[in-house]
C-alpha cells in the first residue's frame, strides 16, 4: 500500500521528469522514496556559477503537510546556510505550504544562493563578509565552488559534524 506522502512523491518525480526546472536535478533513493538526493547548479552570472552542490531531502509520512528536512551535503559558504548544511529558509519553516513540491523547494534554494537574506544569518562570518566585504565574500564562494568539483569524485559527505 502506498501512503499519501509516497503517492505525492511519485507525482513530484513525474513532474520533475516531464517539466524539469533549469539548474536542479533530484531523484529518490532506490531503496527509500522518502529520501532524495538532489543537485543544484550554481546560477549563471553569479559567483556560484559552475558549482555543483549536492543536497539531501528527507520526507516524512506527513508530506506535503509538513516540509521535508533539507540540507546541503556539499560544503557551502553562505549567510543562510549553517556549517552542517542546514538551510535557514522561510518556506522550509514557518512559510511552508502543502502546494510546494520538490521542484519548488529546489528552485527556491537555488535562488537563495545568489540572493541571500542577511537579516537571518545562519553563518555569521558569511553574513558579515556579504555585507561588509563583497570581494572577499565572492572569493570564499569561489572556493566552495571549486571544492564542489572535487566532491564529485569523492563521495564522502563534506559536511562538518553538527556543533
Amino acid at each position, binding site marked *: 500500500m502506498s501512503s*499519501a506522502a509516497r*503517492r*505525492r512523491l511519485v*507525482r*513530484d518525480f513525474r513532474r520533475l521528469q516531464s517539466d524539469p526546472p533549469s539548474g536542479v536535478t533530484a531523484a529518490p533513493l532506490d531503496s527509500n522514496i522518502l529520501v532524495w538526493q538532489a543537485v543544484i547548479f550554481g546560477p549563471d552570472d553569479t559567483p556560484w556559477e559552475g558549482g555543483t552542490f549536492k543536497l539531501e531531502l528527507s520526507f516524512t509520512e506527513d508530506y506535503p*503537510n509538513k516540509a521535508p528536512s533539507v540540507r546541503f551535503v556539499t560544503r557551502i559558504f553562505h549567510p543562510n546556510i549553517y556549517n552542517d548544511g542546514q538551510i535557514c529558509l522561510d518556506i522550509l519553516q514557518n512559510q511552508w*505550504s*502543502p*502546494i510546494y513540491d520538490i521542484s519548488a523547494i529546489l528552485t527556491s534554494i537555488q535562488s537563495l544562493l545568489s540572493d541571500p537574506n542577511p537579516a537571518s544569518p545562519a553563518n555569521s562570518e558569511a553574513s558579515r563578509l556579504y555585507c561588509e566585504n563583497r570581494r572577499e565574500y565572492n572569493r570564499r564562494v569561489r572556493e566552495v565552488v571549486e571544492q564542489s568539483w572535487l566532491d564529485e569524485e569523492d563521495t564522502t559527505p563534506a559536511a562538518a559534524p553538527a556543533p
Partner: protein
Amino acid sequence: MSLKVTIKRWNAVARWTWGDHVDGDVCGICQMPFEGCPPGVKFPGDGAPVVWGKCAHAFHLQCISQWLTSKNSCPICRREWEFESSQGGPPVSFFLLFQPTTHSFR
C-alpha cells in the same frame, strides 16, 4: 462521388467535472486531478468532494482538512481559510461524449 458512413453502434460516455472554476484541474495539495481520488479515497466523485474557500481556491475536502489541522490558512494565498458556504462552490457540470466504436479509445 460521395462517401456514405453508417454508424452501426455507438457507446455513450459520460464525463463529469466539478465545474470550470477549478485551477488547472489539479488539487494543489495532492497534485491529483479534481476528478480523481485524493489519497485514501477509492472512488472519484462523492467520495472525494472538492471544496472552495472564501478566497475561491479549491482543494479536495480530504486534502484541505488535513492541512487545516496544522495551519488555518489557504495553501495558495495564505489568507485565513474559511469554507465557501454556498453548497460547496460552482455547480457540477456534466457533458456527454458520443463515441463511435470504430475508434479505439480508452
